[in-house]
């Protein structure tokens, strides 16, 4: 019933239902509330050894029981109806979902527009071996398609099918109904729990807590007033919740690579498995809070269309995290996955310079010396560098960040200049990208450099767009031999990037599906 058809091979276009238990897994809170409401009193009486029903309302007991049963029945009936009317279909390049019996809703999403696909298992669903499938297309709002719940094997199978169709891997003509095999994957990195705990203890948040604690102790010593410690209790609870959330979401973080893209898995009680198909990452940020420098840890966040902006809820924040905490080797591993072709001869040197370098090492162009009054700390660090495939922007002397935007993902750009910047001959370049935690901005570049970058970046983005011919990532391959770029990242790309085409992404061409 529940997508059993999938595992036995589904012909295109068959409408399937989610698992019958799903409304109960989703609505268990409502059921528990009903049970609690009607059962609490009786239960308490039972414990006290009193008669099950109060004498005063004994006469009305049948009505009460009947009412409770009716509410329960209605709830269960609603669950069954919602299950019965929720159906989905994967066919003809679309995934369609019908829901609702009073207010019907039909959604369809184009498979080749898939931006990311997640399998989420809340604790209860995990106990029953169920999973929710979330399918994102380019829309910052809610998920395009949510299927809750499928059996975990069916969810994986459906994910494999959707990704296979989306990638453009042709189906076997002899067996068109054969389910797509799940793409093989290779684990790239895992975050040990000890490092996760350490990263939380050394995060910006902890610094604020220590400072706040010291301030309140000082204040209480000075004013000899102990009362306001009471007000700190809710704050402490909130902080505990925040730490717990971060720990819970980052626990057992594993990244793997497969032909379908990057797979991320994490979660202590609720587990989540994200798949980011190749080329879906719009922008990437590597950051390092000051205290993390002791252990050389970094954090990576990404913008993916459909994930939306982080910050409005914890879910988006965890979904946009590509690496909660990792050493420099992990960062390079992930960068290699995101940007298989770094577009430069010496990627290690360039990225190292982007992460921790100063001045012009690694080919970065920094704020000119005349701008040092506007950015006394950062002027040697704020800078940008362009490789053949991406633009790198670094900033922050203490809060080091490196932002990377692939050329073919650039949406639009703007040069900004305020009166003060004009006084020092500086300008900012803002790259617009989809909603997310990363906001790419070249800070305080010299006007001439900024103008040149503006022009060249427009040209590079144009060339990159022309190379990207298809949304099917297995199809969009420009198989031309990689030429050694003699000037790497040094110049601002005076030649047209079309003169030296590179393969779109060498890693993605390799493992074709069977």
């Amino acid at each position, binding site marked *: 019933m529940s997508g059993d058809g999938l595992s036995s091979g589904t012909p295109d276009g068959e409408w399937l239902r989610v698992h019958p238990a799903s409304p109960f897994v989703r609505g268990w809170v409502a059921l528990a509330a009903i049970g609690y409401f009607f059962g609490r009193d009786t239960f308490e009486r039972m414990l006290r050894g009193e008669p099950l029903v109060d004498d005063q309302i004994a006469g009305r007991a049948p009505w009460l029981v009947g009412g409770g049963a009716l509410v329960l029945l209605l709830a269960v009936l609603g669950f069954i109806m919602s299950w019965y009317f929720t159906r989905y279909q994967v066919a003809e390049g679309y995934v369609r979902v019908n829901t609702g019996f009073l207010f019907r809703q039909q959604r369809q999403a184009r498979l080749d*527009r898939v*931006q990311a696909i997640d399998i989420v298992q809340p604790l209860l669903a995990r106990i029953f071996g169920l999973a929710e499938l979330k399918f994102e297309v*380019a829309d*910052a709002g809610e998920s395009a398609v949510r299927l809750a719940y499928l059996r975990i094997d069916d969810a994986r199978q459906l994910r494999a099918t959707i990704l296979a169709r989306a990638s453009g891997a042709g189906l076997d003509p002899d067996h068109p109904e054969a389910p797509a095999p799940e793409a093989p994957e290779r684990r790239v990195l895992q975050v040990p729990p000890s490092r996760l705990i350490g990263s939380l203890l050394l995060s910006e948040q902890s610094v604020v807590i220590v400072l706040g604690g010291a301030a309140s102790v000082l204040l209480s010593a000075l004013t000899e007033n102990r009362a306001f410690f009471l007000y700190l209790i809710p704050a402490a609870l909130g902080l505990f919740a925040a730490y717990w959330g971060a720990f819970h979401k980052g626990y057992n973080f594993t990244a793997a690579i497969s032909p379908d893209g990057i797979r991320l898995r994490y979660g202590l009680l609720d587990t989540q498995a994200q798949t980011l198909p190749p080329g*879906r990452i*719009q922008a990437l940020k590597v950051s390092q809070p000051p205290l993390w420098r002791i252990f050389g840890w970094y954090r990576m966040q990404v913008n993916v*269309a459909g994930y939306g902006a982080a910050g409005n809820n914890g879910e988006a924040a965890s979904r946009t995290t590509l690496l909660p905490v990792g050493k420099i080797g992990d960062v390079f591993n992930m960068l290699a996955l995101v940007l298989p072709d770094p577009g430069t001869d010496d990627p290690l040197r360039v990225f190292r310079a982007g992460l921790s370098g100063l001045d012009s090492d690694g080919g970065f162009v920094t704020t000119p010396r005349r701008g040092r009054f506007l950015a006394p700390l950062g002027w040697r660090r704020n800078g940008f560098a362009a490789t053949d495939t991406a633009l790198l922007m670094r900033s922050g002397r203490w809060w080091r960040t490196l932002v990377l935007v692939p050329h*073919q*993902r*650039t*949406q*639009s*750009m*703007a*040069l*900004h*200049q*305020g*009166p003060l910047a*004009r*006084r020092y001959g500086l*300008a900012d370049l*803002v790259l*617009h*990208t*989809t*909603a997310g935690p990363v*906001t790419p901005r070249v800070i305080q570049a010299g*006007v001439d450099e*900024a*103008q040149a970058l*503006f*022009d060249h970046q*427009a040209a590079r*983005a*144009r060339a990159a*767009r022309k190379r*990207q011919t298809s*949304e099917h990532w297995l199809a969009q391959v420009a198989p031309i031999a990689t030429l050694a770029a003699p000037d790497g990242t040094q110049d601002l790309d005076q030649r047209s990037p079309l003169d030296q085409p590179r393969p779109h992404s060498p890693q993605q061409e390799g493992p074709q599906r069977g």
Partner: protein
Amino acid sequence: MPTAAIDPPGITWLRVSPKYVTVRLVEWAVGNLIAVGLLSLSLVFVLLGWWKWPPLWLAVTVPAFLLVLALWRLTLIPRQVRAIGYAERDDDLLIRGGIFFQRVMVVPYGRMQYVDISVGPVERGLGLCTLKLHTASAGTNASIPGLPAEEGARLREQLSARGEARLAGL
């Protein structure tokens, strides 16, 4: 204060209609006169002796300051309107604006998701319209105000056609 443009060199900008000054003047009047008027109320009340607080000097200074600020912004409006420009290049549209806080934006045709034309009441009276481009990024705040209606329609058709020809994925 030097106000050298930060535009890339060698671009001939198309300017918006000078009639757009009127639209901005109306917006200015509605916004600022109401604000100044509301803040002057306290001055009136103090002068009438109804209010003990604020002191007279404060009741005079605040609206006067706002009035000066508003008048200064009034004098800027014609220059600001003259500073708005756009240029259609082969593969992208350039939009510029601002004098003190300058902005030059490039929107590739292939990135445009859709094009809006909106007409407010004042604009309708003057035969103007505002064209807005949307990309997948919310940060693309690309609008060209004060276009003559027929120019707006032409530009929309032109942009749609070019966008279709060069449409790229996300």
